[in-house]
């Protein structure tokens, strides 16, 4: 573990090219946490996860233990695992699914036991063909090992798991859209309330939806105790977390670091992490938590990688993806491409998102390509304000799901931070970056 001596919860097995096989998983202590969990009561297992203060690793950062305890009144019927990773520049779940499918499955089985559900679905993004094959193979092997199926390890507890392939739609990462998709429908996010699938979920029954990385933490928490996990990190951000670093750094890649103990500066510049910016260029800006998050500048480098710390500074850790943009980056082009993404992926149910995303994309495109007008800059912010009034952080929610209000942050960040770049585009009739 770089920079701190924290344990490697996610990445310990990744050095082995065969880490995805059941043989290697068993050799490295695999399914021992499950055996331990089965000697405990379901409530005791849930209490350990609660004590770990594990914040969900999908993007919203909701406490996993609380998600589970919301179901005390109505018994949950399904556990659904969200492996539909599609937030731009996020690539940690892709890695975990391909490389440690058994660790994810063990987390799923333990969680199912704690929740006392007998069926679980692992929804894997359709574009992860290799990941789907590895997960399906891992599931077969886990069945034959007796870790899934009827009477798991002679404990009397039974569980069936289905690996479900997605088919290409960013919006299905939203948990209610994912449930619709799993029911065989278009991935339309559901109208709230109810806010949580714990109330009405899959097949209109109480459901828990957890992220893949969240699940992969569970075996370690059960093996070492929730308190040991909570002792890592600081404040509300406990444990280690996977960060996907990309863009203009010397060493882009997925890195596991202890939360809060490491800063953005460490992540981007430390030798054993990002290794600094390519060609020793200056940092222009960085995206701290996925395409939906407001951008940060050099003045934010010393912020620690903690959920509340980043939230208070006006952005979010989100999905754990950090994109570094050096001094050669065109901020108009970057904002245009992110907006184009939201335009393509808007499900079309809500007018502000469906119409606003396309309108914004066309304006940014014409500025980038020499057709911009000075009044476009006010127009951009006005449309953003119509999608999410005030254009502040966290954004005002006006649509069924958070996709619409996720459009303004990158545009506002780019335009407010780099207004001069926009003006040069308009004055010179095109992009100075070529």
């Amino acid at each position, binding site marked *: 573990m770089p920079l701190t001596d924290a344990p490697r919860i996610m990445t310990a097995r990744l050095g082995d090219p065969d880490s995805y096989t059941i043989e290697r998983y068993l050799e490295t202590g695999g399914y021992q946490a499950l055996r331990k969990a089965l000697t405990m009561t379901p409530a005791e297992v849930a209490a350990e996860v609660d004590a770990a203060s594990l914040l969900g690793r999908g993007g919203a950062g909701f406490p996993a233990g609380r998600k589970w305890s919301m179901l005390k009144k109505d018994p949950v019927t399904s556990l659904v695992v969200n492996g539909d990773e599609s937030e*731009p520049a996020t*690539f940690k779940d892709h890695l975990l699914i391909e490389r440690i499918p058994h660790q994810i499955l063990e987390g799923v089985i333990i969680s199912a036991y704690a929740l006392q559900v007998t069926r679980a679905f692992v929804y894997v993004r359709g*574009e992860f063909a290799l990941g789907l094959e590895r997960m399906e193979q891992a599931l077969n092997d886990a069945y034959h090992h007796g870790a899934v199926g009827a009477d798991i390890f002679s404990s009397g507890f039974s569980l069936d798991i289905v690996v479900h*392939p997605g088919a290409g739609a960013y919006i299905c990462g939203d948990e209610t859209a994912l449930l619709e*998709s799993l029911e065989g429908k*278009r991935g339309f996010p559901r109208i709230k309330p109810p806010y949580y699938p714990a109330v009405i979920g899959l097949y209109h029954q109480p459901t828990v939806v957890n992220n893949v990385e969240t699940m992969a933490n569970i075996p370690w928490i059960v093996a070492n105790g929730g308190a040991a996990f909570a002792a890592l990190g600081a404040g509300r951000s406990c444990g280690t977390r996977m960060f996907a670093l*990309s863009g203009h750094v010397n060493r882009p890649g997925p890195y596991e670091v202890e939360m809060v103990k490491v800063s953005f500066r460490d992540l981007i510049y430390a030798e054993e992490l990002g290794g600094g910016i390519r060609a020793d260029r200056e940092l222009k800006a960085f995206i701290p938590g996925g395409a939906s998050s407001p951008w940060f500048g050099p003045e934010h480098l010393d912020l620690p990688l903690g959920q509340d710390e980043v939230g208070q500074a006006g952005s979010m850790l989100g999905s754990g993806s950090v994109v570094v943009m050096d001094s050669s980056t065109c901020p108009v082009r970057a904002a245009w491409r*992110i907006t184009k993404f939201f335009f393509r992926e808007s499900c079309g149910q809500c007018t502000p998102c469906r119409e606003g995303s396309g309108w914004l994309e066309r304006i940014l495109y014409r500025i980038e390509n020499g057709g911009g007008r000075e009044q476009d800059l006010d127009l951009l912010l006005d449309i953003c304000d119509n999608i999410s009034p005030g254009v502040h952080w966290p954004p005002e929610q006006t649509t069924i799901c958070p996709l619409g209000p996720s459009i303004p942050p990158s545009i506002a960040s780019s335009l407010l931070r780099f207004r001069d770049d926009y003006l040069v585009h308009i004055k010179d009739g095109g992009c100075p970056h070529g």
Partner: protein
Amino acid sequence: MSYFNATMTGRARQLVSLYPEPRSALVPLCHLAQEQDGWLTPEAMEEIAELVGVTPAEVRGTATFYDMLHTEPVGRYVVAVCTNIACLLDGAIELLAHAQERLGVPVGATTPDGLFTLEEAECLADCDHPPCVQVNHRFVRTTTAAAFDRLVEELSAGGHAEDIPAHGTLVRVRRSGGLRVDAGQIARERAAQEGSG
């Protein structure tokens, strides 16, 4: 049953039996149809509708929501070049332009020989190897124009049969654990036995 061939029919029934509600098998069945024919034909959608108990229009309505499901023919190889933010910062627009030139078709089109369909993809979650390229949803990591050309040549010559199956084949691992026999299938077999006995 007439669309799916004999092997696929067995697999289709198994898929339906995995879920508490048959409709959940709709998207997996669409993938199965694409494995058989490379794309989702009207006949496939009709049979899927029958299998899960919805109308063919509902199958089409669902399928057209998803980028990976094609209701028109596509090439043997669907080449997807990501141009989203991380790839954009590393030459993705240029690589996509090169791909159009090399394949001789614009984004969304299929080469006249039916071998390649070119797509501009959204983030494919392989951002530490930009620009990211997938062929039939396999990460090929051809980050340069030269590497891209080499791959196109190899595929044109029939290479990569092992690691890049024809478009539509997503998962080559067959589920073998926790399978229950579908109640409907038991009923059908019993009826057939009674009929013959």
